[in-house]
């Protein structure tokens, strides 16, 4: 049986928004998007979500179970919203690693956190979520907020996260998902494909990146699919919580 994702030259393809691109090019294209939006990432997040992204992240932190002295990995940590909170929770005896594949985002995050005086227990690592450069059984908690949909091989990334987690450690995946309400879904589609690129054009002069963000959200697995992907990767007791009528979902799994 032929794989529909494969092109004529037999190189596997993957989706980049609604387009199909060779797998080897996706990371590069995603990097371009984030290089372009890095400088105004926080402002755009606030504008596009109406500040809701702060509440979604707060909920993720509440469910993380992180405590003083823990070691936390914040993958695709971007501008460091979660890292900042975790840094205060784990205290001086704990450690938080902010990892991001994108150099521009990592720089913005590092500068922002240093300016806020968040230092001492925070490390910054440029790393690919599919091949995490950390020892096995190392972290008490791994989080990836609004990053998994940009990863080329999500299954590999989930397995890599499972490897670096300690037994009993938690993975939290905060990601856009499928709205549970049909009416909300229609309104959300109109918002994503008309308003988001327009705001991108007005503020960062880059509507294409925000069109990609909207498209990539639609291509991301829904709540149940992501749950089964986490189970297949080896996570135990996988649950998810829908937020804002399913626009965002928080998946949580425990390493057995």
């Amino acid at each position: 049986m032929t794989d529909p994702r494969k092109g004529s030259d037999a190189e596997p393809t993957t989706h980049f928004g609604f387009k199909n691109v060779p797998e080897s090019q996706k990371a590069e294209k995603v990097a371009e998007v984030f290089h372009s939006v890095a400088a105004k990432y926080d402002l755009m997040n606030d504008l596009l979500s109406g500040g809701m992204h702060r509440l979604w992240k707060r909920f993720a932190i509440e469910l993380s179970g992180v405590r003083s002295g823990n070691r936390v990995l914040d993958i695709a940590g971007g501008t460091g919203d979660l890292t900042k909170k975790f840094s205060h929770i784990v205290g001086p005896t704990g450690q938080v690693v902010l990892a991001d594949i994108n150099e521009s985002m990592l720089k913005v995050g590092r500068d922002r956190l240093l300016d806020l005086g968040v230092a001492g227990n925070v490390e910054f690592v440029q790393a690919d979520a599919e091949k995490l450069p950390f020892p096995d059984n190392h972290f008490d908690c791994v989080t990836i907020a609004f990053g998994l949909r940009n990863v080329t091989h999500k299954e590999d990334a989930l397995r890599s996260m499972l490897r670096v987690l300690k037994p009993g450690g938690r993975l939290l995946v905060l990601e856009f998902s499928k709205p549970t309400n049909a009416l909300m879904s229609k309104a959300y589609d109109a918002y994503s494909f008309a308003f988001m690129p327009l705001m991108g054009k007005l503020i960062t002069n880059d509507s294409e990146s925000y069109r990609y963000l909207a498209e990539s959200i639609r291509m991301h697995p829904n709540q149940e699919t992501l749950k089964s992907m986490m189970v297949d990767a080896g996570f135990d007791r996988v649950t998810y919580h829908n937020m804002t009528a399913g626009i965002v979902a928080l998946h949580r799994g425990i390493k057995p």
Partner: protein
Amino acid sequence: MLLTGLLASVELGINRVLRLDSTALARLAPLSGKVIAVDCRSPALQLFLLPSDEGLMLAAHWEAEADCTLRAPASSLLSLALSKDKTAVLHRPDVELDGDSGVLLELAAVLQDLELDWEYEVSRWLGPVATPLLGGHLRSRARWYRQGFASLGQNLSEYLAEESRTLVGQREAQARFNELDQVKLDLERLEARFERLSRSLETKR
């Protein structure tokens, strides 16, 4: 999500107030990483407080175990929040403490010792010239009102007691109470004497 939003707003307000005190955040820093659970019995509501050098973080639920749990009815929690002597409220019989109470006592002490520099906050909005003028004006007004109310109270009590004779003055009342006490003592002595005399008459018979 609504409760999370509400707590986020309250947290923002509390931390802004805490920043008005020059020592509060430095004193909260050693409590970083500690979790205090506040368990309101009636109405049933749970809240988690996480102090750090940034202020307080409030959470509707927290997966990790709390270092200290405070269980009390809403009335006690409210008086704990408003009272100046917070440690006295913590020793009430309807207030229960589990775990490391030192964390909660330290947090209560920090909140009790708050000395808020409102003038600094106002100066950020009005500038360095207008703020002392406004502050000086408000302070003198406050002093004037305080003195005015004290003087009104004194004059009113003097008028009612001395001039209109509607009420009995404090000293006059005290003198009457002393006389009453004296009469009471005399009566008790007289009663004792009667008893003694009646007993001696009975024995003579």
